[in-house]
């Protein structure tokens, strides 16, 4: 029996329609979309980022000018331009928002317009990996005006910007598009290799792109998030989300306790004093090292059919990973009806402490206690999380960086290699029950 829940999906594009399974759409459209009917000859700005070598801030003397906030300005400027063109379904800055009093500082927003009162669609929530379905909505169906720019690595060692660049279909471009039902100002979607129509699943390349975007924007209030299938992703087309909010997220303020440091210098810690159990990854000698450890962890969860959410914060220096089980609980009827009534689907933003509420009474009565209670339902149990952690650590073949107390550091070299990883991938059974 397939586990499903009913949900009214978020409208992220003005061209998104209620897709009913099995119905085929006539080809071609005249909608100026991203498919072969409209794409040839289309042009978009192209931002080519410099591959940053070092993750950490430079120590000592560096006689360079502070980086120009190029990507930041491009994102904000293009987003505001679409705003003034009327492409968004509502002005998110007109939605009341507040910090809920308490120690955690949960953030609540009253947004009555984000979800339409359409009939709910059924979503399958028991499989994290599902094949791409051309008949369902995907991002090649968005209008080109909803796409802000292409986002690629630069050929040489500096940032390049091309205000008008052709979309090179051979080159598998990655793009940044608006979310027409924004949660906050600047809400965009990062769609890696859009034309390849990849399903919602993380791999090393795509995660690295997301991390580069965070680092490149260089703004601690611009955060990226990812929801796997089964963890409230509604569109099975590989994408990350991002937006600006100039206040700390509760998850960012939660203390952490180090578990281990990998041989590449990635520190992995438990999150403490927070309703949702998870891991935080930080450090590393390069951005790529951090990226690989996190994406390998995600791949491990995907292979084991464990839904999860990812939050990238601190301009790409800190990454949070939350395995979760709420959707399945919901499908099995195990969630408190009071919580279900709020219709808060705990995706990455909610888990991080940013809640969008549809009903005025929920907003008025929002309390730290309620928020904590909802998020606690999302979290895996302590035992379960330990099991998941074991899976992850085994998968990333990490070696403890031994701190020799006599003063010399003995670093056990890593046997991390692709071959090792493949070997491990095959040895785990599928679904691990909650």
């Amino acid at each position: 029996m397939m586990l499903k829940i009913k949900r009214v999906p978020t409208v992220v594009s003005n061209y998104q329609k209620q897709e009913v399974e099995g119905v085929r759409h006539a080809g071609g459209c005249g909608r100026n979309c991203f498919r072969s009917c409209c794409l040839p000859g289309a042009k978009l700005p192209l931002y080519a980022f410099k591959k940053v070598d070092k993750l950490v801030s430079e120590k000592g003397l560096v006689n360079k000018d502070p980086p120009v906030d190029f990507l930041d300005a491009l994102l904000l400027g293009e987003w505001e331009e679409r705003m003034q063109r009327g492409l968004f379904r509502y002005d998110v800055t007109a939605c009341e928002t507040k910090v809920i009093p308490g120690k955690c500082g949960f953030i609540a927003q009253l947004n009555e317009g984000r979800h339409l009162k359409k009939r709910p669609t059924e979503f399958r929530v028991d499989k994290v990996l599902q094949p791409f379905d051309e008949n369902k909505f995907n991002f090649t169906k968005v209008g080109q005006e909803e796409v802000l720019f292409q986002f690629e690595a630069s050929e040489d060692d500096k940032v390049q910007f091309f205000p008008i660049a052709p979309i090179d279909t051979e080159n598998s471009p990655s793009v940044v598009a608006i979310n027409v039902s924004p949660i906050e100002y600047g809400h965009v979607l990062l769609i890696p290799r859009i034309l390849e129509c990849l399903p919602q699943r993380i791999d090393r390349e795509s995660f690295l792109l997301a991390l580069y975007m965070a680092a490149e924007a260089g703004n601690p209030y611009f955060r990226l998030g990812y929801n796997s299938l089964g963890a409230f992703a509604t569109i099975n087309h590989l994408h990350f989300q991002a937006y600006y909010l100039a206040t700390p997220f509760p998850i960012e303020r939660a203390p952490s306790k180090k578990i281990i440091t990998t041989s590449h210098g990635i520190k992995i810690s438990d999150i403490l004093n927070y309703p949702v159990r998870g891991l935080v990854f930080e450090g590393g000698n390069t951005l790529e090292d951090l990226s690989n450890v996190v994406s390998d962890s995600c791949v491990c969860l995907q292979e084991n059919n464990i839904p999860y959410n990812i939050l990238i914060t601190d301009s790409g220096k800190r990454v949070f990973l939350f395995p979760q089980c709420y959707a399945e609980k919901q499908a099995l009827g195990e969630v408190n009806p009071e919580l279900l009534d709020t219709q808060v689907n705990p995706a990455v933003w909610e888990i991080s402490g940013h809640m969008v509420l549809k009903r005025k009474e929920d907003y008025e009565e929002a309390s730290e206690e309620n928020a904590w209670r909802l998020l606690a339902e999302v979290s895996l149990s302590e035992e379960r999380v330990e099991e998941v952690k074991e899976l992850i650590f085994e998968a990333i073949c990490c070696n403890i960086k031994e701190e020799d107390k006599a003063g010399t550091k003995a670093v056990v070299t890593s046997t991390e290699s692709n071959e090792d990883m493949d070997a491990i991938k095959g040895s785990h059974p599928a679904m691990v029950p909650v």
Partner: protein
Amino acid sequence: MESQLGLIENSFDLRYSKWVHDALDELPDSFTITDPCIHGHPIIFASNGFLKMFGYSKNEVIGRNGRIFQGPETDRRSVMEIREAIREERAMEISLLNYRKDGTPFWMLFRMCPVFSKEDGRVINFVGVQVPILRKMRSSEMTLCENRVGIRESMFKCCRREVCSDSVFDLGHSSSLESVSSYDDRELEINEPCQASELEKTKATAAISNILSVLTHYSELTGRMVCRKRCCFLTGNGQLTASLNISLGRIKQSFVLTDALLADMPIVYASEAFLKLTGYARHEVLGQNCRFLSGMNTDPTSQFQIKKCIQTEQACTVRILNYRKDRTSFWNLLHISPVRNASGKVAYFVGIQVEDGCKNEEDKRALRPETRQLSVVGAVKVAVRGLSIRAAATSTS
């Protein structure tokens, strides 16, 4: 970099007079003074104690941001807490791992305190004091030691091998310290968070006090007085506006913020670039309505257009003839947009000026001026919404 150093010297000396340097140089402590209103929030003064402790020369530090002393093992969450304290303009204290010029890390107690203008309640400077944490102690041992007389000795006695076993590495490794006698801070386990002792905290408090006394005293000489607490009662948007200074200082373009809730919509913020473009000084424009920029040949239709947009809370772009202080004119591609605070209501209007005909030759590859202009709108909207979100919590619903 040249002009920035000039700005730094200027701002510091104008406020405190040039004699303040000597007075500050006499203090033995390690401290820095920063200016949040200058782009990049740079250090504008570093004490001799600071330079000695970190191993830098004055030239290497002035004009740089404090983050250059952070490194790979510096706790990111602590960095975030400092950033938030700056944004919220409050004092704070935290143990932090910093790095010297030679790359060696060390733990220190960082105490930070804002300095407010007595006149308008804006934050003028932040003072940061750094007290090295010399003996690494676990917090559980702290209370034990503090109760005894002769803190130094007992601290040493407490740190016996058995007591200091590390429970963080719960993977079966025993991690006792090899030797107790050589308490070189280079042997510190830098991954382990480090607590400051009462002694260190007291040192920090005393240092802050001394520095603030000096600053207060010397600000009296110039008449531009500062104080430790915000002593100005700010109404309406006032509190928010004052706090915006730090966030808006990041934006390099010419723009002003006008207060939508006050009669005749006065300018409450003007960027450096705006002052440079128009030739006015800050105190000449704050509190004024923007109409002073218009002059003899300004088309009243454009002025009317602006008025209409403001009344209907719409964004608009007009090409309007404006005048500088020296009465020379320029064509201003002015973009105006309403800016809402966290309550969802319009709290400000932002006006961004682009001098028409002023083309940046070098940059075919740069953003279009229109995009840059709109990016300012976005940046201001994000800053205002973010900063007012906490105020929204305290107001009654």
